[in-house]
Each structure stands twice: as structure tokens, then as C-alpha cells.
């Protein structure tokens, strides 16, 4: 077919211009900014002071940044395992012909359509509150006085209270992706397996899971992106402060150094840009590793 070059130019130019102006330019500016000392994000370039790699060096030495990276890794790994296992389980159950599938699917998905701030407030005030919360009342009712006194919003447990609440809200989204992946699998493979005498669990382990490899890759990619952009939940958990050591993540740290906080906190948009670049590199590494480890589906169906 003869290609109409004018048409291609006509269709692509506006999109390309917007891509360059809205996406590429800020990305390049951020990368360049990370090598400078810049006070405010919108300072003109004439006010920038070149500092080489010193922003990166200072990040490498900053304990709170290490803590933030550690928190993010814990959310990614622990939360990732929890969310993937639970959402895959729900997906497997709901695609197995259970009655009321639509209803359960809607219920499990609901947290995704509610604002994160509202969900976080619900968890903090209604579940974790150490005076009136659900957990407090439950342990109080069964007479576990010591457990009833647990303070979910202080100390190291605060991280896990955050993790559980965040994962709760994430399950529905990944469940939907898994469900669509499972429903895509051809029924005749299962029929054949059933005739050969394979149990449902065996079928799940040896047919469903291997064929979902590509879906897993998608899910892990989405999960990685959402964990790296972890911000609102962390802020909700440390309110009214900007951040706390137990729940700080790199993006929260980036926000703190870029915009400062109460009163006269120091600002350094260059350092913030360096955090952004480091996080982008982390995403790229994860993608690279994922592409290497999880091969694309080689089976066509």
C-alpha cells in the first residue's frame, strides 16, 4: 500500500510537538537540574549553580534517603507479594464459575474508585484508632486487653499499618488484570486436562500460572510504578507532619527538599531533581530486569 506521507506528518506532528513540549522538555530539564544547585523549581537558569555530581553524592550519604529507599523496597517486596497472591487468588476464585461474580468483583474493586485520602482517613480513624477503632474494639470484646492497647499509628508498627491499608486498596485493580488474563485462556486446554484427570489445583499450577507469565509482567510493572510514586498514603500517615521516618518514601523526601515545609525549611530543587532521576533509573532497572527474567509468551493461543 502506498503511504501518504502528508497524512503521516499531519497526524503525528501535533502529538509529537506536545510530547516534546510537555514530556521530553521537563524530563531533560530535570536531568540537567540535578547537576545544579537550584533553590526554587522555577528559578531561571541564570540563577543555577553547577555542582557536578554533588547532589548525587549527598543523596548517597543521606541517611533519611536510605531509610526512604528501604521503606519503598519493603513496600514493593512485601506488599507486592501480598497483593499479587491475594489478587490472583480472588481472580482464580471469581473466574471459576462462582455465583455472584459481578457483585464480588465490584465490591473488591470499590476501594480503587474512592479517593486515596478518603480511604486512608477511614483506615486511620475507623480501623487503627486506639480508642475507638475496629481492631481496638475487637480485641477489647474478646478480652485481649494488651492487644487492644496496641498503637498502630506509632513506632515501627506504623509502617505495617500503612502497608496493609495500601495493599487493601490495591488488590481490586490487579485482580481485574488477572481475571482478564485468565478469561483469555482457551477453555479447550482445561477440558483436555480435565479429561486427562488433572485436578483444579493442578490445572491452576501447571496451566494457568505459566500462561499468565505476560500478565504477571504487566502487573509487576504497574505495581513498581505505583510503589515508586508512593506519596499520598505516606503523607496521610504522617499528618500533620510532612513526613516521618517510619513511613517516608523517596517521593516524600523529594517533595520535602524541593518545596521545604513549615516555615523556613531549606529548599533545594536540584537535590529534588536528583531524587527524581534516581527514581527514574530505578524504574528503568526494574523494567530491564523484568524483561530479562520474564520472557514474553512463546505460546500462541
Amino acid at each position, binding site marked *: 500500500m502506498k503511504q501518504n506521507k502528508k497524512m503521516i506528518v499531519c497526524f503525528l506532528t501535533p502529538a509529537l*510537538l506536545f510530547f516534546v513540549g510537555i514530556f521530553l522538555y521537563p524530563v531533560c530539564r530535570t536531568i540537567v537540574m540535578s547537576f545544579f544547585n537550584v533553590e526554587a*523549581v522555577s528559578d531561571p537558569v541564570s540563577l543555577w549553580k553547577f555542582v557536578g555530581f554533588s547532589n548525587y553524592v549527598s543523596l548517597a550519604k543521606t541517611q533519611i534517603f536510605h531509610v526512604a529507599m528501604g521503606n519503598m523496597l519493603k513496600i514493593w517486596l512485601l506488599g507486592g507479594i501480598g497483593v499479587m497472591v491475594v489478587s490472583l487468588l480472588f481472580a482464580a476464585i471469581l473466574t471459576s464459575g462462582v455465583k455472584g461474580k459481578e457483585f464480588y468483583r465490584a465490591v473488591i474493586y470499590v476501594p480503587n474508585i474512592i479517593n486515596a485520602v478518603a480511604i486512608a482517613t477511614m483506615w486511620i480513624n475507623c480501623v487503627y*484508632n486506639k480508642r475507638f477503632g475496629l481492631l481496638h474494639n475487637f480485641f477489647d470484646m474478646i478480652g485481649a486487653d494488651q492487644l487492644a492497647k496496641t498503637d498502630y499509628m*506509632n513506632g515501627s508498627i506504623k509502617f505495617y499499618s500503612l502497608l496493609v491499608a495500601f495493599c487493601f486498596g490495591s488488590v481490586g485493580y490487579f485482580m481485574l488484570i488477572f481475571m482478564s488474563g485468565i478469561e483469555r485462556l482457551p477453555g479447550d486446554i482445561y477440558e483436555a486436562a480435565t479429561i486427562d484427570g488433572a485436578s483444579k489445583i493442578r490445572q491452576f499450577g501447571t496451566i494457568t500460572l505459566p500462561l499468565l507469565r505476560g500478565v504477571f509482567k504487566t502487573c509487576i510493572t504497574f505495581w513498581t510504578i505505583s510503589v515508586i510514586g508512593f506519596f499520598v498514603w505516606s503523607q496521610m500517615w504522617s499528618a500533620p507532619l510532612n513526613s516521618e521516618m517510619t513511613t517516608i518514601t523517596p517521593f516524600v523526601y523529594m517533595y520535602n527538599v524541593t518545596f521545604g515545609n*513549615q*516555615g523556613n525549611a531549606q529548599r533545594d530543587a536540584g537535590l529534588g531533581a536528583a531524587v527524581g532521576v534516581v527514581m527514574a533509573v530505578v524504574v528503568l532497572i526494574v523494567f530491564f530486569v523484568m524483561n530479562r527474567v520474564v520472557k514474553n509468551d512463546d505460546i500462541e493461543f
Partner: protein
Amino acid sequence: MKKSFVRVAAGASALAMLMAGCGGATSSSGTTSSGSTSSGSTSSGGAASSGKELTYWSMWNSTEGQAKVIQEAADAYYEATGVKINIEWKGRDVKTLIGPALDAGEKIDFFDTDYMNNAQQNGKYLADLTEMAEAADYESHALPVLVENVKSWSDGKLTVIPYQPYTTGVWYNKAMFENAGIEAEPKTWEEFLDVCEKLKASGVNAITCNSSDLTLLYGYQFARYVGQEKVVETLNEATWSSVPEAKQAADEIRTLFDKGYMSENAPAQWPEGQNELGFDESAMILQASWVPNEIVQNTMNNEIQWGFFPWPSVTGGVDGPEAAMIGAQGFGIVDKSENKQEAFDFLMTVVTGEYDLKMAEAVSSIPSDIQNTQWPASVVAAQPYYEGMTKAYNWAIGLETNNTYKDILQNNLGELVAGNMDGQAFVDAMTAAK
């Protein structure tokens, strides 16, 4: 025919993409810049319109008490002068939005945010109001220490007009003090411990705190010994081990927890700690002057008679009741504005006189005009100390300013009061963290 249809379709698609692109850009800037924004403007009518319009980016949301009074003042100003004030209710995000907006050439005449933040971080955008202030005799209305602070951050110029001031100290339930047989407010640390003991004996928690208040407690105690400058220096230089008062203050704050003076739920997630006063469980809290109003709002307890005293002095310390952590919000007028005088005149109607008093009443806060001596009942106990105060501490005595260090400090204070660290371990941990 077919070919021309394709052409039309292609043209339409390209146009749609362009429009979508523009639309996307506009709406995204709209959402990032507004959040819960809605535009308010003055009502029409009244004095003949002068044709002048000012744009104000506000740190309040339109539903807040302060916003309602400001809107009322803007309406009145329009009635009187014909100058219209267009208000964009940006909420607290104005702090992060204002710099990029002004750099991008957005037409804004004046805006507000924390007065210190405004003077220090937005100084390059702000007009020098010194002459206008002199002409309007503004300083006879303002608390001197706030104005001096602004000038010290802006090379001697008045760039920010402070309003909605707050002070901090110990807020207490007067009835509980009477019940415990306490006749005088404590002035020294020893007297304070004595008061705590009596309150505890009377069956209530002597004092409580939110987990976010630990820097306030420790900061005050530390600063009473060495003053704010030394506290900030210790934080930034990590000289904890060479300042013995750092350890001593930590040990003393831990005493409040060890001896059972502090509520067993403290430190609690905000606002659970402060709410204990509203539930009549605890007698005292160290917090800013907005706390009585917050407690009343949260717990619907209007019965409390609020008392106030400054954080106690310590033996051998350099600071006493004359030093307090105070602050304010602050209006700044954009230097590029063509209507600086009009903006200033309007701001004078907000920060002095009738509307200032209205705002103080609306949210039970301290009036910014010192000639407004009628304070709301819930904060009036702080009035004599506020008026006699000569030394201003920054928020949390500057302990929350260092972004690479503040979360570690907060965490170690949590460990300290949980009994997992003593003063020495706290000081060691802080030194090691640098």
C-alpha cells in the same frame, strides 16, 4: 468523494488532537493549581466600579472561617472603592504553587502563606511595603516582634504583613487545676512537676501530646536552657554530645512519661492526643493557640474554661516566659503588581480593625491588630504573656527545618518517650545520624 472524506476526517482529527492537547494542558494546570479551588469574587453593585480588579491567591479554602471574613471584607472594599478583588481559594498548596505561577507571568496582585515562609522563600517576588506602612501608621497596629521578624528576613524591609498570629504555651483546663488544689500556674520546671503530681493524684492525666508535638516539647525544654540559636546550631552541626543540656532536656521530657504524668495514650496520632482535653481525660497540652478551637470543634466540648501559661523556666537556663514560639500567616504584595496601593489598602482592612476582630472571633484566634484588645474567650488567657513577649522562637524551635534530619529526630524522640532510649542514648543516636 472518498478521498475528500478522508481529507476532512484527517483535518478534523488533527484539529481534535490540537484541541485535546490544549484542553489537557489547561485543565491539568487548573487542577494542579487549584485542588479544591473555586473562584470567589465580590458581588456587583454598590459604589461605581473603578474598573480596577485585583487578583488574590488565598491560602484558605472557601469554606474556612478566615475565608468567609476575607470575602466579606472584599465585598465591603468593593462597595467603598469600586475596586474588585478576585479571590482564588487555593488552600495551603499556594505555598508550592505561587513561585512557578509568578515566574510564568501569572497576574497575581497579592497572596498569603506562612509569614516566615513568605518572607524567606518568596522575597524576590514581593514589594517593599515600608513606605505605605508608614503612611498608614501600620506599625501601631502590629505586634512589634512579628514585624521585626519579617524585617530581619527581608534585609530590613517590610515585605510581608503578618496576620492570624499564634502563640504557643501550655493550655490547660482550669476546672481540673482547681480540683487538684492548684492555686498558681507553675513558673519553673520544679513547680511544673509539682503541678503534674497534683493533677495525677486528682485522677486525671496531667498532660498529653500528639506524636507530632514531641519536637515542641523537647525543643522548648532544650531552648529554655540554651536559647533557640544554640538549639538550631546543635541540630545542624550535630554537636549533641558537646552540649550537655541536649541530654538533660531529653531526660527531663522522658520524666514526664516515666512518672506517669503524660497520658498513657500519648504520644497519640494527631488529633487524638489533643482531643483528650475535650474528653476531660487530660489537663494540659503544649500547643499553639489554635488548639483550644480545634479541640472544641473535634469533641464538641464547649464547657472547658481555658487557662494558659508559658512553658516553665529551668534552673540555669537563658530563656523564660518572655520567649515563646510564635508565628502568623502573612500577606505579600507582588512587586510587579500595578495596584500595590489598592492591595495594601485592602489588606489594612483585613488585618486591622473590624474585620480583624471578626476573623479572630470566627476561628477563636488572636487578633493581629494589637488595638483589638477583646480576645476570644478560649485564648484570652494567653493575652498578657503574648503582649509581654519579646523573644520569638520559630516553629518547633527550628527543629523541623532540616529536611535530612528532622524525621530522624522525630523518630528518636518517639523512642525516647517510649522508654527505649535514655537521654544519653538519644544524644548518641542523634550524633550518629549525621
